[in-house]
């Protein structure tokens, strides 16, 4: 088991290194682009050349990559042209905001989707199963750019219960967090619940669940001890992969509610062609993907004894 974990961690590091090399080649192979992006279109060629020499862009590519990587590891991510501040500082604040959003998103999503999915899968074909299925399909089929408008129309403009923007200008506010979290959960829970339902229904039909029933175990025990653990393997992996989805999913929602988070930062960096900021955001996304994939894989092994090697 320990060897398996180490092997997987090494693989994760290798993935991240490979991704960083790709990113470097994409963004910084041609120094001219970097100078253009940093100094703007109205700079002269001479100014750009001077800037490149001053910033060490005349050195060989390999050295530049290693330096770039080293700077990245120690948290020196350059300055943002757009915000006139160190990239690390800006990204830090924005990432924290999205982490709070993500925490509440998962805190609601996990019990809601797993609970509904399990209930539906336990009694396949019952009216409860059908009701849950319909609800899931309807909510999942409305993408966030539409659902944000819809829920705003209801809760902000008709009922006047909640604020329509979540910019948190006067400090953190839970009231302002509700709408973005709701938009994300509404879109995503149906999907996870459907997967959970299918997984649960499959497990409930297995011989070992029937065997547990025929040993005279009470229904509660059959569901909680025998079925649930095996049924949750698939949704667990999926949830982990959804951390990635969240990063792109939040762009629309954060932008719509003017939430100062990581998603809207990516958008701003791309629109403003802020190269260093974009590099940092992309690297963080890659990092998140690699880490959650690793957790998903290791969790799968932990949940499923058949995957363990002696």
């Amino acid at each position, binding site marked *: 088991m320990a060897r398996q974990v180490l092997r997987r961690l090494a693989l994760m590091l290798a993935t991240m290194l490979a991704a960083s090399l790709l990113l470097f080649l994409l963004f910084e192979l041609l120094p001219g682009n970097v100078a253009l992006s940093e100094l703007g279109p109205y700079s002269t060629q001479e100014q750009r050349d001077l800037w490149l020499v001053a910033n060490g862009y005349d050195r060989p590519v390999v050295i530049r990559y290693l330096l770039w990587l080293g700077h990245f590891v120690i948290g020196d991510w350059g300055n943002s042209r757009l915000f006139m501040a160190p990239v690390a500082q800006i990204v830090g604040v924005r990432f924290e905001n999205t982490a709070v959003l993500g925490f509440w998103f998962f805190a609601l999503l996990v019990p809601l989707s797993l609970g509904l999915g399990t209930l539906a899968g336990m009694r396949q074909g019952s009216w409860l199963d059908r009701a849950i299925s319909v609800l899931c399909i309807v909510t999942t089929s409305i993408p966030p750019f539409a659902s944000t408008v819809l829920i705003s129309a209801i809760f902000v403009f008709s009922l006047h219960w909640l604020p329509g923007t979540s910019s948190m200008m006067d400090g953190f506010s839970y009231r302002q967090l509700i709408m973005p979290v709701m938009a994300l959960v509404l879109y995503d829970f149906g999907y996870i619940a459907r997967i959970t339902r299918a997984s649960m229904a499959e497990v409930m039909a297995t011989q*070992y669940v*029937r*065997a547990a029933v025929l*040993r*005279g*175990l009470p229904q509660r025990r059959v569901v909680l001890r*025998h079925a649930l653990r*095996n049924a949750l393997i698939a949704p667990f992996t999926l949830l982990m992969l959804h951390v990635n989805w969240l990063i792109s999913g939040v762009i629309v929602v954060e932008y719509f509610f003017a939430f100062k988070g990581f998603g809207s930062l990516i958008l701003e960096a791309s629109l403003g062609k802020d190269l260093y900021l974009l590099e940092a955001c992309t690297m963080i996304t890659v990092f998140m993907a690699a880490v959650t994939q690793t957790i998903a894989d290791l969790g799968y092994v932990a949940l499923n*004894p*058949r995957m363990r090697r002696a």
Partner: protein
Amino acid sequence: MLKPSTLLALDDVSISYHTRAGAVPAVTGVSLAIDEGEAVGLVGESGCGKSTLAMAILGHLGGRGAVVGGEIRFAGRALAGMSPDEIRRMRGRGIGIVYQEAMAALNPSMRIGAQLTETLIVHRGTSRDAARKAAIATLAEVKLPDPERVMDAYPHQLSGGQQQRVVIAMALLPEPRLLLLDEPTTALDVTVEAGIIDLLNGLRRSRGTAMLFISHNLGLVGQLCERVAVMYSGELVETGSVADMFATPRHPYTMGLFSCIPRPDLPRREQHLTPIRGQVSPPNARPPGCIFAPRCDWFQAGRCDAVRVPLEAVDLASDARVRCLRWREIAPEPRPAWEALATGAAEQTILAVSRLDKTYQLRSGGAVVRANQQLSFDVPRGRTLAVVGESGCGKSTFANVLMGLTSATAGEIRFETTDLAKLPLDRRPALLLRDLQMVFQNPDETLNPCYSVGRQIGRAVRKLGVERDRAGVQARVRALLGLTRLPAAFASRRPRQLSGGQKQRVGIARAFAGTPKLVVADEPVSALDVSVQAAITELLRDIQRNQDTTLVIISHDLGFVRYIADRVVVMYLGQVMEAGSAEEVFAPPYHPYTEALLSAAPVAGLARNRRIVLSGELPSAMAPPSGCPFQTRCPRKLGAICETERPPEQLLAGGHRILCHIPPDELGRVPPVYAPEETLAVD
């Protein structure tokens, strides 16, 4: 003497499933009683309602099924009157169940210990420690070595035989009064099966647990039960004591079940398999009158189809009953004489295997599995070679090398003039592909459910280059369907519209698309019902005779092997233990392993001089025993020499070979496993 009290009573029980097409009667009017401590066998083909009956006894018919008539009483109480909670308590504590597939019945993500103890904790309120102690004791009682280790293992870490023992231990733990055994050994090797039957017999003696043994195998029923009930299409057609029914089966269906099983104790010229024609009528299309009428050779129009046939007592003395109007008039027909294979002047070798090695490397630099070691044998043209042995002995590896799915590590397989050992499938010329074909074990998995039968056979015809134009392919498909005795109309059917036996016929038709010279059949009948097995066996033999095909059969069913094979190769842990003609292998001198295999064969009416139950598990192929591979389980082990030295290959008369340290004349003095035919109780 006081009659023991009745534990389970089924009184005129009828069970129906509710479907969109209306109620489908799965079981009709079954009456059966099991006394305390008694073992009763329930026999019949699949689809006869045996398992439905077992589920009804446990009160678990699901949402669609219901007992629509009669009454089931357990320990004097009617199931219909019990509350859901009472039924739950009856399950496990009153009635335990053991399933066909032990692996599937165990939760893959829970340790064995947790699964065993929870039953006790729930049913008896035992403390965790006491439950653990009891579980360990029961694991020891079912003869599992090292129970402590088993408690901490996950199901996938145990072998099939060990898993089945765990399932039996699990059923026994709450000390039920009745054990339902639903085909508990069907998925196991014969040697392991013999061990489980031994165990069940021992448990009956020590615990006095009553048993309802559901099986399609009359031989196993005979080894375990006192009474048998034969079920056909939802009804009991014959009941009685094992001794009586095995001596004189009265119902044509029972007789059919007996005569469609090939026996390992008789040479094939003395056997003739008579398959039961047709198949079990579906519950909603049962004929009027006798339900067996469409398949019965003694059917009389106007009599058998006139009224429903009652279950009639045979005489006053015994409790034997039979559901046949003509049982007094019919007698088993004498077996027709065997039509001998025309023996050619000189046998010509079509396939010569010599010193074949196949080694698998698990991960680079890691463990090595020697799946095939120094295999050498010849196959004469137009004859049948059977490769037998337990699972994991390397039979399938050999088939894979032969078919080119994997390449040999060393040695050669000469097919006519080509060496196949290192010739992978994709480098074999088209003509060679045509000459070498395969029939698979499970027709359900080898036929594509989306395409019609005709299209699948046609594809083989086209791919093998037999015919190219549309009309030619169609004609060939029709011819192949005819060859396998399927109506031409089947070409447009899809696999799911076919029965298991029909699907296997399609598989055979596909293999014979290019008139192959050699066909490898990997367990061709073991996934089929007994009555169908006989028909498929006959079909293979007929085609072989007509087309002069050579067959290489991979099988663990010794009756089938005796019936069909001319030559036999016995394998153990990747090596040939014994090779020779069927007559030589099935008679002394035996290799001790062959002897154990033969004695374990579960065949009805087999008069055995002894039963050898091999101790221990099959050793891992990664760490084979030193010296003789069989020494760890050999009942005739000599001593140190078996552990240190690889046994010599002893050549006997007629090319018969045995790999053993024991001198051949000593092996020759071993009495035969099967008693001579005169003493047989059953025809």
